[in-house]
């Protein structure tokens, strides 16, 4: 695989991982290591006073893992900017996953506010990866204003439904000049493989790994599926046909 280029950064794996919803830090470590991922998301949260250990998660990450802080929980561009700056200061990274949701029930991105937020963060020097709806117009605009990638959803966050609208995902991939990272809603490695076969540049997976019965095996499976889909898209699949075509030769059969 060629490296995934996000702004000034390069990554050998095209599987981005989330770190939420794991049952323990040990599991987080093992699963992320098994996935082969080189970039994982984290959320920024207030320290609970009296808590002895802070950011223990950071120490639990596999060696070589890069960090992509997110702005989860923000409902406005202004809040997202504030959280992104805190993360940058603490982590020394200009990477940020911009996530501005419209409501706590559907967890759908607020696209117009996300565009505003992306503009503010880009002006402030961030390498912005915005989570957004699967809307080609929004994705084009995010690319046009300077986002390092776009991150359209496959399905609602945590739903596990997979790529519910492959037509529009292909349209986005065709029309957007920056990398397309499919985020949210993937349920199994097959879904990740499908996203990559549609031409996505990478996928981000959290719940489907963390909430699997065996997160470590599932993480490895996602890593393999992403590579499979990457290779497949570039290897040029056969067309679909409604009728059959023989794979064994028709002539030369033994006769009586």
């Amino acid at each position, binding site marked *: 695989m060629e490296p995934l280029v996000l702004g000034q950064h390069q990554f050998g794996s095209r599987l981005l991982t989330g*770190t939420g919803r794991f049952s323990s830090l040990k599991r987080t470590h093992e699963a992320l290591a098994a996935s082969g991922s080189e970039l994982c998301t984290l959320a920024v949260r*207030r320290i609970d*006073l009296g808590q002895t250990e*802070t950011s223990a998660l950071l120490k639990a990450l596999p060696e070589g893992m890069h960090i992509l802080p997110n702005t989860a929980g923000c409902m406005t561009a202004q809040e997202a900017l504030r959280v992104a700056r*805190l993360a940058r*200061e*603490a*982590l020394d990274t200009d990477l940020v996953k911009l996530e501005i949701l419209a409501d706590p029930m559907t967890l759908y991105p607020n696209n117009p506010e996300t565009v505003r937020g992306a503009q503010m963060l880009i002006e402030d020097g961030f390498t912005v990866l915005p989570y957004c709806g699967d809307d080609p117009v929004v994705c084009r605009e995010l690319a046009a204003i300077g986002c390092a990638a776009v991150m359209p959803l496959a399905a609602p966050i945590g739903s596990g439904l997979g790529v519910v609208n492959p037509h529009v995902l292909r349209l986005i991939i065709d029309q957007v000049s920056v990398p397309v990272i499919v985020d*949210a809603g993937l349920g199994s490695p097959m879904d990740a493989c499908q996203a990559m076969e549609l031409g996505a540049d990478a996928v*981000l997976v959290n719940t489907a790994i963390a909430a699997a019965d065996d997160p470590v095996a599932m993480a490895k499976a996602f890593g393999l599926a992403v590579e499979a889909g990457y290779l497949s898209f570039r290897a040029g699949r056969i067309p679909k046909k409604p009728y059959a075509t023989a794979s064994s030769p028709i002539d030369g059969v033994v006769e009586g």
Partner: protein
Amino acid sequence: MKLWVNGQAIEAPEACSVSGLLTHLNIDGTVAVERNGELVRRADQASTRLSVKDRLEIVHFVGGG
């Protein structure tokens, strides 16, 4: 002196710095700090003196997607 940290009222040594506050609170991991809505750069944590009723936000990193 009284400070507001993450929405809670606490007592801190008079005129302590941001660094001093973190030490006072036994916080030594990777964190970031806002004082009255303004980010405090890490380089400035030692030199930034706090005042009574300052509102501070101290954040760290947790699992997220």
